[in-house]
């Protein structure tokens, strides 16, 4: 069952010299109930803007965000607040996202206060319940964010995001700032919560090994567009788009010497204010053809399709 369906979502920003920066271009995707969709890409590919657009934390220019049958783009601000309870987000920086002047108890209770849920006593009980859920001691409620480590702060941010029992959680680089040993604790916590609360998650990260670990399906973004989407196993083991292939080849792996690894692709992502015509990846692509420089490939199952896969690449167009 589809929980969220995004159609042709576009977000632009004014760029230097009157240029238009296409942060997110015509992105379509869906997230099923109990599903984790990984969104992976390099900086500037639009993955964070996409995540924020889903909550209208940045206002998309065009497109539809259909959540449980309602297009959130068409509802008014007040009614949108009602849906906001079901859609929550956690960010990368657990230092920047918690108000240092509020106790942890207040930080976690804030969504309940904003949405006028319960009274002071019931909120206190709910905070205690949430602290327990994310594995923090009960006395944490009286303490301040600075008294906690990075990993613990991320647990606080997760507790806050779960306060209203959302159906969909957007995790934007939520483990990227953490040390390796702490990262696995948080990944395990997210996996537990997903099971306990049957959460759907849009998991945004630049880290392919983390994305592979948590996701059922993966969408790969490049310069504001999805270039490939498929099951996690297919994307990682049999990537179709040359960019996906390059991205996977570039991840340093344990036990693989440089001499055994593939040569990295050349160049850097183009300027989003001045995207090249045709396929945005064509200037770095080892398989570039004439058509790639002129015509933008559509995201589609293509020739010899793989189950659940869509790829925007002329190598696979009919």
């Amino acid at each position, binding site marked *: 069952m589809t929980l969220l369906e995004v159609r042709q979502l576009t977000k632009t920003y004014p760029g230097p010299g009157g240029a238009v920066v296409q942060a997110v271009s015509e992105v379509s995707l869906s997230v099923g109930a109990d599903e984790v969709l990984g969104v992976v890409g390099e900086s500037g590919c639009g993955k964070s803007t996409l995540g924020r657009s889903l909550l209208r934390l940045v206002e998309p220019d065009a497109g539809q965000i259909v959540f449980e049958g309602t297009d959130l783009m068409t509802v008014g601000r007040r009614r949108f607040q009602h849906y906001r309870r079901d859609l929550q987000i956690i960010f990368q920086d657990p230092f920047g996202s918690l108000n240092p002047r509020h106790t942890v108890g207040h930080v976690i209770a804030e969504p309940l206060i904003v949405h006028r849920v319960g009274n002071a006593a019931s909120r206190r009980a709910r905070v205690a319940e949430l602290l327990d859920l994310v594995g923090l001691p009960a006395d944490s409620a009286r303490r301040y964010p600075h008294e906690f480590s990075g990993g613990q702060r991320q647990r606080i941010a997760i507790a806050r995001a779960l306060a209203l029992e959302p159906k969909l959680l957007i995790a934007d680089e939520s483990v990227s700032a953490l*040390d*390796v040993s702490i990262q696995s604790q948080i990944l395990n916590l997210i996996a537990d919560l997903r099971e306990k609360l049957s959460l759907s998650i849009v998991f945004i990260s*630049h880290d*392919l090994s983390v994305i592979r*670990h948590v996701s059922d399906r993966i969408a790969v973004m490049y310069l504001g567009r999805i270039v490939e989407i498929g099951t996690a196993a297919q994307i990682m083991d049999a990537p179709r788009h040359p960019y996906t292939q390059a991205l996977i080849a570039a*991840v340093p*792996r344990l036990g693989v010497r440089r001499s055994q690894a593939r040569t990295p692709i050349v160049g850097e992502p183009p300027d989003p204010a001045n995207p090249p015509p045709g396929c945005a990846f064509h200037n770095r692509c080892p398989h570039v053809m004439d058509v790639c420089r002129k015509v933008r490939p559509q995201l589609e199952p293509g020739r010899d399709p793989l189950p659940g896969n869509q790829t925007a690449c002329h190598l696979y167009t009919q």
Partner: protein
Amino acid sequence: MPVLPLPHVPFEPIAPLTPPSPTSPLLSIRDLHVHAGATPIVEAVCLDIHAGEMVGLVGESGSGKSVTALSIVRLIPEPPMRIPQGRIDFDGRDLSALDEPALRAIRGEDIAMIFQEPMTSLNPVFTIGDQIREMLLLHRDLSVKAANARAAELLARVGIPSPETALMRYPHQLSGGQRQRVMIAIALACEPRLLIADEPTTALDVTVQAQILELIDDLRRESGMAVLLITHDLGVVSQYCDRVAVMYGGRIVEQADAGTLFAHPRHRYTEALLKTIPSANTPGARLPAIGGTVPAPGRRPPGCAFHPRCEAAIDVCRSTLPVLTDDDHQHACWNPVP
């Protein structure tokens, strides 16, 4: 002694890229201690680096890896930090005993550094050309014209397209990857014998990271420059370094050639670290997490600093500090992986 079953080791052993050099090391750190006030940050670190070698210094935040690296060229803020004990021998001279003018002559000339964030290491109000020329004019007796030509040559070497034009650009006009290339060009300007790279690719995208690491690797192979790579990324170390030192709680807890260390870690911390990373596990499976957090300096427990988080801790770990073994595969663990 009971025979213990061999642990599950997911990695194939790989022969080291270069055989250990019989010559004396270029840099030899002996029993280095760094304190901030009364708090020990780095404790009893010993590390050798030979010419042409790439050594990885790995650790999580608070492990002391960056302070160790900065201490080599004495870029730690003194005070509050100080080096109460230890030697840093570089090519026969003890850097820990040198005064500031002598250090300044060595920095950039013999030992160069690059850092994580190239934007904050470059001066935003000077052109790229100004900043490379500064190094050359400071350390080399060159005319401005010759310095210009050399600067363009350096930019070409680090893979900046149209170097002459790039010399006139300002840092903000370059991408993150290109800024790191410029930093490398500045570092290489005086053909240093040691490059200290502190998380040089952490702020970069993975495809750009691969390019920058390849570049550093190529450069050390062609020039015989030694590289000390400080990173938290075990994959990067495994792919590029000849030798690896793992730091925890301010100390080196394990050191070996990269192939050996990743195939057969001896210290329980290294073992736990290698097992916990997502790519070593079945997708979706519960990760064998390491409980607790890295102890902050000043709050390091007695005995082995890792013991409160260690699943193999025995009584002695809680009370007595383990000493590094004195062999090719150094490890400081009372109950090592057999």
